[in-house]
């Protein structure tokens, strides 16, 4: 293994390779930051460029792209309330409120640092688990996936805070929206109302672009001003504060990275779920925060950002070990490997270990490089929040709509983004949480599919959820996560009462 690592480092440290890595990182940052494009599109577009390359060079270019996209995506999530890619959606919840408070620099600094550290943790985990990949992948069957999704859905209760009824209403709407389209269990199209565009379901990215970015632009147009509410008080020099916050909240970063790696390794779940679960766990772990979540708590940026970068390493586990992509991006990457005659699977790990380590080294260097670029430019990026609405609204709206279109070059996606923009605007106006809607949209179909598969496999026997150790463990965690915040709050209230009584 050590020899392979040396060969991996050696492959990377030549002028050609470093240039390829930097080009990959730059493309990744750009495609990550422009809403709707993302790493999958970037990797797919770059495939023809790799035709004349050696396999290790193609791997370096693709590694650079994959490592940098979610770092780029965090910037637009924080500054424009637009997730550059779907896994950055959870970053908008606290990142954008921080930008509105004039703390965009701090949020970007924290997001980029958490991304880098999360990425490194994910990659270290990838290297560490290579010998036990098989066991990890086989551990999760539909009952476990179902329980995992339920665990995430419980975040709805926590995320709603004091708006439980509104939270439940938007969650139900999110679930209903998630049910639209082709259902893989039955092979039939549901609730499409005969509209061809809806036959494949509501696509997540255009919906999120409308719900978060364009709706916010409508809101700004009505209100006027700029994103940051009080531009006179802004000092765009708090990037280092953001970096410090990550080290101060190291446990949040570590838990997020753990989620990212773990969930990334499970095929078909992906970075979006990892980021949402990490965010919701953070909210549940911290029931009495200094700053309410959703209103600009820096830990609400650190948790999802560390998770969505750590998943890059994690999602390569099933990709390399079994040829099963852990995400859409790794699915395209798998295509690149196949194009270059590299067969993913154990054969790759056994016979081509140096190539695997070239990828590992490329991912590590690229994630750090992308973070340094973002940190260096954060100060200038943060100035965006001070730009007048007359400039900002046309620019962001067009970038967002072009992003929605570019994803599948489908005009219908633009219509979806606009419809969700109107829905999002009214949600802002009447104080209905968009977080709960998004969580239900992301996890609803995963929950339903795995429940149905469990029932098919076990002939409708519901006790299966209570007879498998991992499923039971996840159930216990769900119950604890629901009960723990209330329990901890009550204990704290009782302690406060006692202290007050004692001081009388």
């Amino acid at each position: 293994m050590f020899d392979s690592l040396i060969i991996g480092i050696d492959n990377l440290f030549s002028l050609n390779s470093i240039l390829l890595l930097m080009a990959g990182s730059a493309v990744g940052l750009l495609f990550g930051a422009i809403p709707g494009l993302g790493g999958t599109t970037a990797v797919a577009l770059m495939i023809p460029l790799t035709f004349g390359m050696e396999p290790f060079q193609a791997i370096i270019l693709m590694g650079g792209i994959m490592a940098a996209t979610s770092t780029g995506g965090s910037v637009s999530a924080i500054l424009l309330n637009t997730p550059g890619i779907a896994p950055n959606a959870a970053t908008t919840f606290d990142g954008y409120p921080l930008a509105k408070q004039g703390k965009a620099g701090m949020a970007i600094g924290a997001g980029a640092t958490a991304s880098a550290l999360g990425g490194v943790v994910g990659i270290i985990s990838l290297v560490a688990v290579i010998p036990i990949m098989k066991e990890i992948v086989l551990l999760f069957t539909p009952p476990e996936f179902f329980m995992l999704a339920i665990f995430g859905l419980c975040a709805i209760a926590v995320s709603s805070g004091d708006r439980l009824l509104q939270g439940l209403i938007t969650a139900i709407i999110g679930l209903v929206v998630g049910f639209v389209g082709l259902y893989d269990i039955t092979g039939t199209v549901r609730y499409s109302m005969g509209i061809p565009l809806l036959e494949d379901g509501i696509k997540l990215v255009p919906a999120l672009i409308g719900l978060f970015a364009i709706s916010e632009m409508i809101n700004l147009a009505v209100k006027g001003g700029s994103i940051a509410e009080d531009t006179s008080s802004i000092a765009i020099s708090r990037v280092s504060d953001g970096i410090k916050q990550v080290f101060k909240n190291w446990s949040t970063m570590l838990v997020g990275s753990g989620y990212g790696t773990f969930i990334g390794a499970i095929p078909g779940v992906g970075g979006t779920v990892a980021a949402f679960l990490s965010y919701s766990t953070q909210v549940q772990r911290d029931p009495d925060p200094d700053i309410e979540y959703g209103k600009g708590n820096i830990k609400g940026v650190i948790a999802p950002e560390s998770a969505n970068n750590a998943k890059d390493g994690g999602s390569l586990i099933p990709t390399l070990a079994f040829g099963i992509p852990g995400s859409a991006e790794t699915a395209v990457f798998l295509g690149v490997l196949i194009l270059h005659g590299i067969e993913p699977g154990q054969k790759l790990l056994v016979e081509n270990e140096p190539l695997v380590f070239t990828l590992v080294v490329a991912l590590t260097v690229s994630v750090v490089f992308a973070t340094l670029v973002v940190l260096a430019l954060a100060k200038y990026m943060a100035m965006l929040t001070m730009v007048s609405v007359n400039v900002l609204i046309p620019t962001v709206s067009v970038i967002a709509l072009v992003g929605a279109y570019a994803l599948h070059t489908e005009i219908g996606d633009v219509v979806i983004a606009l419809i969700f923009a109107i829905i999002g605007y009214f949600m802002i106006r009447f104080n209905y949480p968009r977080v709960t809607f998004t969580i239900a949209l992301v996890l609803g179909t995963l929950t339903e599919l795995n429940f149905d598969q469990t029932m098919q496999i076990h002939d409708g026997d519901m006790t299966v959820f209570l007879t498998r150790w991992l499923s039971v463990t996840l159930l216990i965690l769900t119950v604890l996560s629901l009960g723990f915040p209330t329990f901890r709050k009550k204990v704290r209230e009782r302690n406060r009462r006692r202290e007050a009584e004692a001081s009388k």
Partner: protein
Amino acid sequence: MLSRVITGTAAAALAVGASILPAQAKNITFLIAYGPGGGFDTVTRKLAPLIEKHLGGNVNVVPKNMPGGRGKKAANYLVNRKPNGRNLLIFNMPGHAMPNIIGEKADYDVRTIDWLARAAEFKYLIVTSARAGKFKTWNDVTSYKDKIKIPMTAPGTTGYLATAILMDAYGIKPKFITGYKSSSKYALGVIRGDGDLTILAKGSFRKYITSKKKNRQAFKDLTPLLEITNGPSQFGVETTGSLGKKELAVLGGDRMIGTTPGTPKAVKDKIANAVFKAVSDPEFAAWGKKVGRDVAPLNAAQTKAKALELFAYYSKFKSVLAASVKK
């Protein structure tokens, strides 16, 4: 203020819109009916530069993913273009023929597509998990009294339909565990015990089991039970032919390239010639061998005949197919 915002938005939209218009009207769009990263995506992207090479001139062949409706969206798009040979698509046969056979709504009809060439084909194999040890031979399967659980993609997919026809031929009532996104995922479902057996393309199976280190290979658990062929078995198991079911040998998949119906003969012949040369190119054959894809070139006339043959064959199982899609 609102009017200024609207003016600004319109101006910006015009500027960006202009930049995303097609750069060259002479490009050929090579549609991919599924998302990036899959088999169709890689084959299309491998073939595009080869078609460019054999077409000559300055024509670019640009791959474009158009996933949706299990491949129907791209096929509908293709037949609604002007018939000028500027759009190509690799059809997934028999999957693309299903809507035509069972009477589902589709703008296209595989019998009227202007076929150019066939790139590849694959045949199936029934596999189980050695670890589960439930079935050692195909005879164990046919004599099994309980329901046989089969992890599979959604009803209506090529693998599902082939399994449904095969099980029907042996009088076995299968219980499909549906919802898996791809063959590698339902194969993994068999390994971890979600179901009893499943169907795999022989190339995929070969890819999954070739490993030097057995203890680190989950897919090594897969073991073949029945091979769909009229020839000798490549895997040392019983074949549908040896068991007297010769008509089942057709079950498999063909990757056929077509263009918009009604394309002028001269244009069609020129493109068909280039596409056939591309699929017969030694570079494509070498690549196919390397990545385990069965490259099987057919020219335009042979491809058309094959499409009609497949349509006629699968039409015989219309009721089985229609029932499986409705489930």
